[in-house]
């Protein structure tokens, strides 16, 4: 298996200039301090510096260095959501996401880099405070215009790049200018150096301003740029006279660069501010092509903006983005031009159209080969941040109709994409607005997706009620969502133990789906029928429906559906005692789920595979599968999934003849389930305990059970996975201080340490040794640092102990 990278830091786009001392200092400070916040105006280089520091720290954090970019989010609750997404943590039903994230990071040594906290600074402060309080080895490096103002924070103010002084012209700011000018294809000779120096001073060493100026050197000489910038700064009005000087300088430079743009470039730049984050050409063409810009002009205009350093892009020019500072400026210009509403509207429409198309390709249309469906799925996921921005606008502008449409067209917002709560939030929010004029059928359609989300959140009765209302009011010819609803109701009713009613809906769904040639829902309905038959103990029927479901799913091609039906068949095989067949079925689903990145379902499937393999006495692969399933469960922060894997591990242990391990693992699973308010599969446990009592005796079994219930799930899992014996009762090991060797001190320092035991003051020691008190103080500071002491008095104690010990 390839080693997964332990960071998600982007490659640097161009040369990084200077700041060597800062990098060294920050490297040490981050190790020493829980939270370091890099503060300063936009464009001063906070992000770039933070990324550099973080990259250097990768080797120091075994659990990774994780960049969380917050610029594109407007709403506070997205802070923890984005942290979770980056870490691969999934929401658990019935627990706040932040709780799951904190639990997941508790034991980890990792560094979180939160970039651009300023606009969500309060929530960032709360989240960081909670994380730091709950996770002792976690470090946070943040960038923000404003500090978080929490207790554990060190505020580190980022200065501009060094300015050239009279003699030395190789200052950082000049280096940056030269480098970017060269990159723009300009060759500057020595003669222009004086002008470059003047320009860098006028720009106050602000990196973004310098880059914008350097990008113009193909047209203007540094001297010309310096003159114009000077003129401009004397006239500068935007931003107000009260704004801090650096901010004014930066704004001045941005404005100067903007004013130099061709009219169409200006229009495009400000329109680009509507995108959530990075975007591709296609999206730009669809959203921004409106008078005076034609769609086919956009590629060239974008290229022009990239040349002027106002827009960034990756090497392949596949994704474009705006620096936050530029984006804010562009958005302001868009507002002034009176185009904001129009553009937001367009953005919403375009997103709707695109996501509807992707959804149709991924799920609804017949006869689409899987690679194309998969492409659509990926494309749709790439739009998710823009979709959120568009939904936000729909809610803000009261466009319930389009908002709802957008909700029901993206698997990324659905539990199917591993996203539990979000769809519920959006639909509830939209439905709480004024819905006059929204057709009842549309509302019913949206409620279908609401019901779907509620089921994933384990709110079964609300889900059922919503689904029923949705079915009652949906247009009769809205076949696809109708079938989706029937199939959802099947799942809900089965979970509620109402197989009779479930069967009815499954049949209904199957009829409609067959009539309309809808493979997706045929497969889902047949899988439902198979599940119903299984519950009723009609195994042959269950098998028949299951096989047909898998065939339909295969014709459709969607891996999620195929995996679901394969797992259903595995369950049927298990029920009739055909473990080998069950194993094969479960195994086939594994690569499908891996391809989709559906980690929750993958973990579940691995747990099943492992359990069955264990029963077949294929211990090696059972162990491997269960280990993989446990890893995913842990990494995604899902306690329910961890419990499921523990049950599998209990089976493995018992099959291997380790009855004690089996009881421990089962007890740990039961304890974990109880802690999240879940019922355990009691019959399985009762049977196990019965066997244990016979073999191990009552007392031993009871004591193992209570020990296992209190056991940390990870420890219990490791015990079975590694075949470890019971670990010794973990003593509360204090953080053992490193043994300090006397020899780290110089002879002089040892001498002074000795004198301290006599209770001498610095002055007294100075007199004794005939040196100055300041020198004594310096030695003492060195001794404290070497020994890791935080007070002078500690040295005396230490020295006294040493001399009595050795003497």
């Amino acid at each position: 298996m390839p080693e997964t990278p332990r960071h998600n830091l982007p490659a640097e786009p161009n040369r990084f200039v200077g700041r060597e001392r800062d990098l060294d200092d920050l490297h040490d400070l981050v190790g020493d301090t829980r939270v370091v916040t890099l503060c300063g105006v936009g464009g001063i280089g906070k992000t770039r510096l933070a990324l550099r520091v973080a990259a250097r720290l990768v080797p120091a954090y075994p659990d990774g260095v994780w960049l969380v970019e917050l610029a594109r989010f407007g709403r506070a609750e997205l802070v923890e959501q984005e942290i979770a997404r980056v870490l691969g943590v999934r929401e658990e039903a019935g627990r706040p996401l932040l709780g799951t994230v904190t639990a997941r990071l508790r034991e980890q040594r990792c560094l979180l880099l939160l970039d651009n906290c300023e606009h969500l600074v309060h929530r960032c402060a709360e989240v960081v405070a909670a994380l730091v309080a709950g996770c002792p080895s976690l470090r946070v490096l943040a960038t923000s215009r404003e500090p978080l103002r929490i207790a554990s924070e060190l505020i580190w103010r980022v200065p501009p790049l060094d300015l050239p002084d009279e003699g030395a012209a190789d200052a950082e700011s000049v280096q940056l200018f030269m480098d970017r000018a060269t990159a723009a294809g300009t060759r500057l000779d020595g003669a222009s150096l004086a002008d470059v120096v003047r320009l860098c001073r006028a720009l106050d060493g602000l990196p973004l301003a310098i880059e914008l100026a350097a990008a113009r050197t193909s047209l203007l000489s540094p001297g010309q740029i310096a003159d114009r910038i000077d003129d401009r700064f004397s006239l500068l009005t935007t931003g107000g006279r009260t704004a801090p000087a650096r901010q004014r300088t930066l704004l001045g430079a941005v404005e100067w660069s903007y004013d130099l743009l061709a009219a169409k470039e200006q229009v495009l730049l400000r329109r680009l501010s509507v995108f959530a984050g990075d975007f591709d050409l296609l999206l730009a063409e669809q959203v921004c092509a409106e008078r005076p810009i034609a769609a086919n002009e956009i590629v060239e205009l974008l290229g022009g903006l990239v040349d002027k350093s106002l827009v960034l892009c990756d090497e392949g020019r596949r994704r474009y983005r705006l620096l936050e500072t530029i984006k804010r400026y562009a958005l302001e210009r868009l507002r002034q031009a009176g185009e904001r509403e129009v553009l937001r509207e367009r953005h919403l429409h375009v997103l709707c159209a695109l996501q509807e198309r992707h959804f149709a390709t991924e799920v609804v249309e017949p006869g689409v080969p899987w690679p194309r469906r998969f492409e659509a799925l990926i494309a749709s996921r790439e739009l998710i941040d823009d979709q959120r921005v568009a939904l936000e606008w729909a809610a803000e502008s009261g466009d319930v109709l389009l908002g709802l449409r957008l909700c029901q067209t993206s698997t990324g917002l659905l539990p199917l994409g591993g996203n539990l709560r979000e769809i519920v939030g959006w639909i509830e929010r939209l439905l709480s607005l004024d819905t006059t004029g929204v057709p009842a059928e549309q509302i019913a359609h949206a409620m279908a997706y609401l019901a779907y989300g509620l089921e994933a959140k384990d709110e079964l009765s609300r889900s059922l009620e919503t689904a029923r209302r949705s079915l009652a009011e949906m247009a009769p010819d809205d076949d696809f969502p109708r079938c989706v609803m029937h199939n959802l109701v099947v799942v809900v009713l089965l979970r509620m133990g109402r197989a009779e009613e479930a069967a009815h809906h499954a049949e209904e769904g199957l009829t409609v789906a067959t009539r309309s040639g809808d493979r997706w829902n045929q497969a889902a309905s047949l899988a439902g029928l198979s599940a119903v038959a299984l519950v009723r103990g009609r195994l042959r029927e269950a098998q028949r429906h299951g096989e047909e479901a898998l065939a339909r799913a295969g014709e459709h091609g969607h891996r999620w559906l195929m995996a679901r039906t394969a797992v259903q068949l595995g369950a049927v095989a298990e029920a009739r005692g055909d473990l080998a067949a069950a194993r094969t079925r479960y195994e086939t689903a594994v690569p499908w789920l891996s391809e989709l990145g559906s980690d929750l379902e993958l973990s579940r499937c691995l747990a099943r595979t492992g359990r069955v393999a264990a029963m077949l006495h294929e211990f090696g692969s059972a162990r491997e599968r269960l280990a993989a399933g446990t890893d995913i469960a842990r990494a995604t922060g899902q306690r329910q999934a961890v419990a499921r894997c523990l049950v599998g591990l209990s089976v493995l242990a018992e099959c291997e003849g380790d009855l004690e391990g089996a009881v421990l693992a089962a007890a740990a699973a039961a304890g974990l389930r109880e802690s999240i308010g879940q019922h355990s599969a009691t019959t399985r446990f009762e049977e196990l305990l019965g066997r244990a009592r016979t073999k191990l005796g009552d007392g031993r079994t009871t004591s193992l059970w209570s020990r296992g219930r209190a056991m940390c799930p990870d420890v219990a899992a490791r015990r079975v996975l590694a075949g470890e014996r019971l670990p010794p009762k973990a003593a509360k090991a204090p953080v053992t201080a490193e043994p300090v060797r006397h020899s780290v001190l110089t002879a002089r320092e040892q001498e002074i340490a000795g004198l301290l035991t006599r209770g001498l003051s610095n002055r007294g020691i100075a007199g004794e040794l005939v040196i100055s008190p300041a020198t004594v103080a310096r030695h003492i500071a060195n001794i404290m640092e070497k020994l890791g002491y935080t007070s002078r008095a500690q040295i005396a104690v230490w020295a006294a102990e040493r001399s009595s010990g050795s003497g």
Partner: protein
Amino acid sequence: MDQRIVMVDSGTGLKLTEEQLDERSAVAAVRLRHKGVRAGDTVLICLPVGPDLLVATHAVIAADGVAWPLPVDLDQATLRDRIQESAARVMISNVQRALDAAEESRVRIVMSVAELSGASPSCPTGR
């Protein structure tokens, strides 16, 4: 140890003994080092005349730095100029005007008297 009094705070009448001076400045010196102060670094100190100023100055010297005191009653513009001139990376101050004046300087870290004396945000598990 020496109970000799080395300073009296004219405002509060509180006395600083030699032992306290030695101990507090030793602690503060280590704090400064942890914040990245290195041999030869300039450290700005803007505190009212009194024991804290004395301790801070001793600490900077013990940390091998160069103390650069700023009188608290300088006007804003002069403060700003002096700060600029110093090119210091670290400033010790509780004085709001000095904090404001450091706003657009090259000062990276501002330490309060409290942070200097051990009430520090740095984590106990850090070392």
